[in-house]
Structures are given as structure tokens and as C-alpha cells.
């Protein structure tokens, strides 16, 4: 199953979103990577690397950043991955909706590109 990493400036935001997705998309593995290593607002490449390792189950990992330096840090991490590592993709998607849609797709066994597509389609999903 594809794993999902949620990268946010805020530990609480990443953890809350991961908890939400876990509830809605039962079975998906969603790992938060929020804040700095000492729990402040910010991003940490180290936390993102660890989260990717935790999320990986062999079918690849989709990383969903919230905004700003989350995107930059996630990009930096992905650029530095071992060539032999499982595939990791970065989603250009709204954080909560993208995570929920990706979580459902992952939970039904979709492959990495389909999970990424589910997240990115959330850009066009209307709420009302």
C-alpha cells in the first residue's frame, strides 16, 4: 500500500490531519511530519525523512506539504533520496482535502500515481 506523509509547519496541524485521514480512510498509513525537531513551528528535513521511512510499505510514498517551506523542505528531501529507495512523489494539492482523497485511494490499494492523482484532483473539488 502507498504510504502518505503530511508535511506542515505545525506539528498539531500535521498530526490532526493525519488522525482525520486515518479515521476516514481506514487502513491507510498516514504519517505526520510537522514542525521542527524540537516541536516548534517550522519544517524539518530530518522529520520528513523519518516520516517517509515510516510510511513506506514498499509501494511508494506520497508527500503532501501544506505551504511555503513545507514544499521546499519536502522537495529537498525528495531530491536527496537514494536512487534505490522506493518511489516518493510530491503532491500539488490542498492539504486536508488532498490528504483525505489520497488516503482513500491508498486504502483501496491504488498505486502511487493514482494516489497522487486523487490528491491533485482535490484542487478542483468544490465544497458546496
Amino acid at each position, binding site marked *: 500500500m502507498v504510504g502518505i506523509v503530511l508535511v506542515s509547519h505545525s506539528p498539531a496541524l500535521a498530526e490532526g490531519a493525519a488522525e482525520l485521514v486515518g479515521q*476516514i480512510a*481506514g487502513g491507510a498509513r498516514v504519517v505526520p511530519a510537522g514542525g521542527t525537531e524540537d516541536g516548534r513551528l517550522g519544517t524539518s528535513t530530518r522529520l520528513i525523512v523519518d516520516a517517509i521511512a515510516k510510511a513506506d510499505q514498499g509501494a511508494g510514498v506520497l508527500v503532501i506539504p501544506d505551504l511555503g517551506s513545507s514544499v521546499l523542505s519536502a522537495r529537498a528531501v525528495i531530491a536527496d533520496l537514494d536512487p534505490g529507495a522506493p518511489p516518493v512523489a510530491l503532491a500539488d494539492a490542498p492539504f486536508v482535502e488532498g490528504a*483525505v482523497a489520497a488516503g*482513500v485511494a491508498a*486504502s*483501496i490499494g491504488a498505486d502511487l500515481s493514482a494516489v497522487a492523482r486523487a490528491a491533485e*484532483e482535490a484542487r478542483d473539488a*468544490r465544497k458546496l
Partner: protein
Amino acid sequence: MPASSEGPATAGRLQNTEPPENTEPPATAEPPATAEPPATAEPPARAERAVILPKHLHARPAGLIAQAAARYPQTTIEIVADGRRADARSILAVMALGAVAGSEVLVRTAGAQADGATATVVAILTAAED
């Protein structure tokens, strides 16, 4: 497809919550092993059922529906509420229907296993609040 073409004929009140497992229509049974050219001739099966929601169609049931829909890859599954349609595979589209407790929604399916897919989705929609 125009939204006005609802076929109310089969849309009865629903009471039985059948087990979600695939209740395939046995009638269309598979041809014997020596089969003639399959498939092409048969029109796709269709099914439609109306349900009064006992609870809001919020995130969790929408997620369950999307997960269940994935078990019917050959079947088109739509949920219709207040004249708006959502693909059951899209949790975000289903949530965006904004269907509330007490309102009627229509489950409309087409393709192989249409009956089983309908029963599965109806069972989720009518399950008691979790």
C-alpha cells in the same frame, strides 16, 4: 444526461439492508464452458434505489462508500442528491453533495454487478450512525 430523467419507477422506500456481499444476478448466468462470444450482446445491467438518510452523509460514510466502490471496478456508481450527482468513488464529490439526515438520495449503478454495488452502497448509507 439530463438531470430530469430520473426514473422514479424503481425508487421505492428501502427497508432491507442486505448483506453487502456481491449478490450477483444469477439470471444472466455465465454461458457454459463452450461459450459463445460473450459480453458484446448484453446491455449493461442497471440498478437504482432511493434511500432516506438516517444520518448526514458526512466524511466517514463518504469514505466507506469510496472504499466500497473500489470493489466494483466494472460498475459505474452514482449518488444523486437534490438533483446533483456524485461519483461514488470520489469522497470529496460525495461529501460535497451536502446530503443531510432525513433527505432522500438515489443510488444509481450501471455495469457488471450493478445490483451488488447498489446493495453495498445502500447498506452504508442506511447503517446507523457510527
